[in-house]
């Protein structure tokens, strides 16, 4: 865990160094905010992977779900927002990278891959096989983080430029995700029996039985995921609202 934190801090430093020196006042302001966003992203990952959430994720489906929320839905947008402005400009100046990113982070592809990862990493057979080993658990965390980056990229990242994917479409994209989240939520919350052997047969922690734990996990996915996604939708709405207001100019006074 500490290795990951150290790597992320080092990456932030490298991205900062990679920024060009022509940064103006706007860039300085962006980078100050970016620093806090990056810190928030690292903090979310730390909470997700370290004790107690990380340790309990081998015993409780609800802790596993909290880990998913933090790793796939909270940390990635913060880390992307934490990239300094200069680093984005350098990336935009590399045509091959932009071409690859344009394809991989196309909203339809990004949401499809993310949903596939969500589906795959919540299959009982996959969870029961992977979560019993450290390597398997790391694979799940990596898939979540990578999938989350991909999912949030079209919403948050300025490269590649997608003028047609404006705020209304971003809101629609996020809303679609809240709908797609409903399927695994329904399976977990309304399932008659525990799906995951690893959690059903784990030494009991606290007062939650295996079924109740699974229901809490489903609710966390729906409510926690909903809170994150609807917060993002609200932010997109206000960004859109402000931009429209700026485009119209000041309201004339009598």
């Amino acid at each position: 865990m500490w290795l990951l934190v150290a790597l992320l801090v080092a990456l932030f430093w490298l991205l900062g160094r990679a920024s060009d020196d022509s940064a103006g006042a706007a860039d300085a302001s962006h980078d100050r905010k970016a620093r806090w966003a990056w810190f928030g992203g690292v903090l979310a990952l730390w909470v997700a992977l370290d004790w107690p959430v990380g340790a309990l994720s081998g015993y409780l489906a609800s802790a596993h779900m909290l880990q998913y929320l933090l790793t796939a839905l909270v940390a990635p947008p913060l880390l992307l927002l934490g990239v300094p402005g200069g680093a984005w400009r350098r990336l935009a100046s590399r045509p091959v990278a932009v071409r690859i990113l344009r394809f991989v982070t196309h909203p339809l592809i990004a949401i499809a891959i993310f949903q596939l990862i969500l589906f795959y990493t919540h299959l009982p057979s996959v969870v029961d096989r992977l979560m019993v080993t450290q390597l398997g658990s790391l694979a799940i965390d990596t898939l979540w983080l990578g999938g989350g980056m991909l999912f949030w990229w079209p919403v948050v990242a300025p490269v590649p430029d997608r003028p047609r994917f404006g705020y209304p479409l971003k809101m629609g994209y996020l809303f679609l995700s809240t709908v797609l989240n409903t399927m695994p939520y329904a399976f977990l919350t309304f399932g008659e029996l525990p799906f995951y052997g690893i959690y059903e047969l784990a030494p009991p922690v606290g007062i939650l039985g295996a079924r109740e734990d699974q229901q809490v996990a489903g609710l966390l996915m729906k409510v926690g995921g909903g809170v994150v996604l609807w917060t993002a939708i609200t932010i997109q709405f206000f960004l859109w609202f402000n931009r429209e207001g700026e485009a119209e100019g000041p309201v004339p006074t009598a």
Partner: protein
Amino acid sequence: MRLLALTACVAVLSVACRVEAPERTQAEERARSTGYRGIFLPDADARPDFVLTDMNGETFDFRRETEGKLALLFFGYTYCPDVCPVHMASIAAVKRDLSVDEQRGMRVVFVTADPRRDTPERLVSWLGNFDPDFVGLRGTEAEVDSIMLGLALPAAIRDTAAGPDYAVGHASQVIAFPPGDGFRVIYPFGTRQADWKHDLPRLLDP
């Protein structure tokens, strides 16, 4: 490029859908051949005949008290960190889904392998967490070991030298005796609620 991505997605999805846990397939394979997901032992002796003391201090004659009913017998201890609470919780969760008549037709009997620490009060409180109808039995260590040996189970190993928080090594299977006897079904640790849900109605009415 897009075709490649689509093919990769379909490949991953099909692999994901085909992955099955080996223990699941074993239990289901058993169910296909014997009708039970537990380990079916045909032509077994009648249920054991032993008398211990229940958690209310009353004498409990196992054979008489469980006659004509499905009996689930388990040897464990209340300080057990894993196997015992998981077995009890699984059985209790599935029992709650059965009809009242079905619930009346079965008895879950927990015999403590650790009578030093498992006082009657502790048995009442611990088993009550799962199901107040579960019966807790106590005897001397020698009595309990002798019953276990009679059922071809290993005697418990009590590591009392390790201090007051000692662990007890004990058999981890639940033994099911159907109402008419004649066979037994063994449920090792790893038995899931889905397995109990599949087998309990069949055990109640074989």
